[in-house]
């Protein structure tokens, strides 16, 4: 792959200045996950209003892929019905990122989805399709 495919401008932009990062007090839902392969950590705080995600914040540390994925996803998640957000697929996330992801980096790209899911449904497994 050529250099700019994976680390293209938009990804690096989100990595350096992530959207919706930080904490939310008070919040209605929260979860925290680690990627066992690298020790990266991501947490989420969610405020719920009328069955929808009214606001959310991610926190933690990770690589460009996991941070950019969380940042990009966060823009989409605001306003989304909870049940929809809780069942988003791996493909949804990968498509949204729009970059080629190797098998090893898939877990980075999907870490935020895993955290989201755990916050909403209590399910701590990887989103299906994580391989």
């Amino acid at each position, binding site marked *: 792959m050529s250099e700019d495919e994976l680390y293209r401008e938009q990804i690096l932009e989100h990595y350096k200045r992530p959207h919706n990062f930080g904490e939310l007090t008070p919040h209605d839902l929260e979860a925290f996950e*680690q990627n*066992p*392969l*690298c*020790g990266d950590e991501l947490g989420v705080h969610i405020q719920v209003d009328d069955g929808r995600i009214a606001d959310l914040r991610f926190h933690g540390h990770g690589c460009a892929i996991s941070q950019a994925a969380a940042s990009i996803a966060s823009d989409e998640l605001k306003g989304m019905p909870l049940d929809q957000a809780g069942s988003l697929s791996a493909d949804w996330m990968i498509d949204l990122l729009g970059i080629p992801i*190797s*098998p*090893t*980096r898939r877990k980075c790209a999907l870490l935020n989805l895993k955290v989201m899911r755990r916050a909403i449904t209590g399910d701590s*497994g*990887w989103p299906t399709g994580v391989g």
Partner: protein
Amino acid sequence: MPQAASTRQPAAGLAEGGAPASLAVREDFPILARRLQGRPLIYLDSASTSQKPAVVMQAMDEHLRAHNANVHRGVYALAQEADAAYEGARATIAGFVGWEPESTIFAKNVTETINLVAYAWGLDNLAAGDAVLITEMEHHANVVPWQQICRRTGAELRYLHVDERGELSSGELAQELARGDVKLVAFAHVSNVLGTINPVAEMTATIRDAGAISVVDGAQAVPQMPVDVRALGADFYAWTGHKALGPTGIGVLHGRREILESMEPFLTGGDMIAAVDFQRSTWNELPYKFEAGTPPIAEAVGLAAAVRYLAGLGMERVRAHEQELTARMLKALAEVEGLSVVGPPEPQRRGGLASFTIEGLHPHDIAELANREGVCVRAGHHCAQPLMRRLGVGSTARASVGVYTEPREIDALAAALRKGREVFGL
């Protein structure tokens, strides 16, 4: 990348009955071209360890020469190739016996896998007042771990008897379970001494109905007959690579997911953790939770090549071949004076081996005398001392066949035994 599967479909030699008396695969096994003491090698010890087809050595060699890296942690391309090779091997090996890769665990041999269940399930689920039930025909690998865990937990170890035909009685299993204290039953799919094929599906159903866990030692079954772990209904099914045309250094455990998930890990260390803090750790998902440290990577790749080779032959054909040879062996042995075979008389009720004694010839001497004719047979207790005691013998000689065994090799065994009797003046 793993070697491509052998697509070769060898023509089967047809014996009298139309069954494949030879699978005509000898040239796939380099060792069979060897001569020992000037004689061709006649290898009748496959139940101890099988010989390996060249595709197995090639797959391992190719892996180590071109794709070697550690697994599960590398970002770089070479590490991803190693991951793909190792996890691809797991999928191939699990699929070969109809199980899912996620609950297929690699260990170093089948012995380790049974220890895994004994320690990791037993330490937390057994206590005084409980019983573990095994059978008199078990290999030490399926005896001693249960003795030890019963000692540590205070549970009782009981045995199902072997009858004069060398078989278990389903009535006795039901009776033992009816006592209400049996938490786990462990037994061999195929006995490595008697050859007996146990009715696994029937037994696991009875065990499950009684609320106990079943552990099946498939070491002698997977190499020689079609095995569908799901259809067999075992909670744990274990086997070993080196007897199934694969390399040493790898054993396989298929486990029911819910049970594996409920268990504490056995070996601990790298790769099997989710997070390690100073005082406590959490565990990785299946199957990794039970694979601590660098796994047998090249060995998994080699075993995958072995099962692809077996699948290429067709396990139905392999079974037919071994049954045909077993029939021939039972017949040939019966004609040797003073010789007694243990285990069921019907070839269709047994795996491809025959254990025997000869009046006036100790098994060690039988093996020594056979060796002079280039025939390799095993002598001893075959890691089944409780069974030896039950049979009232100290040891036996054992001849066992593999996919590469030819009818003429059976005949050579019988001839060697006759000659041996003469040496001893019998």
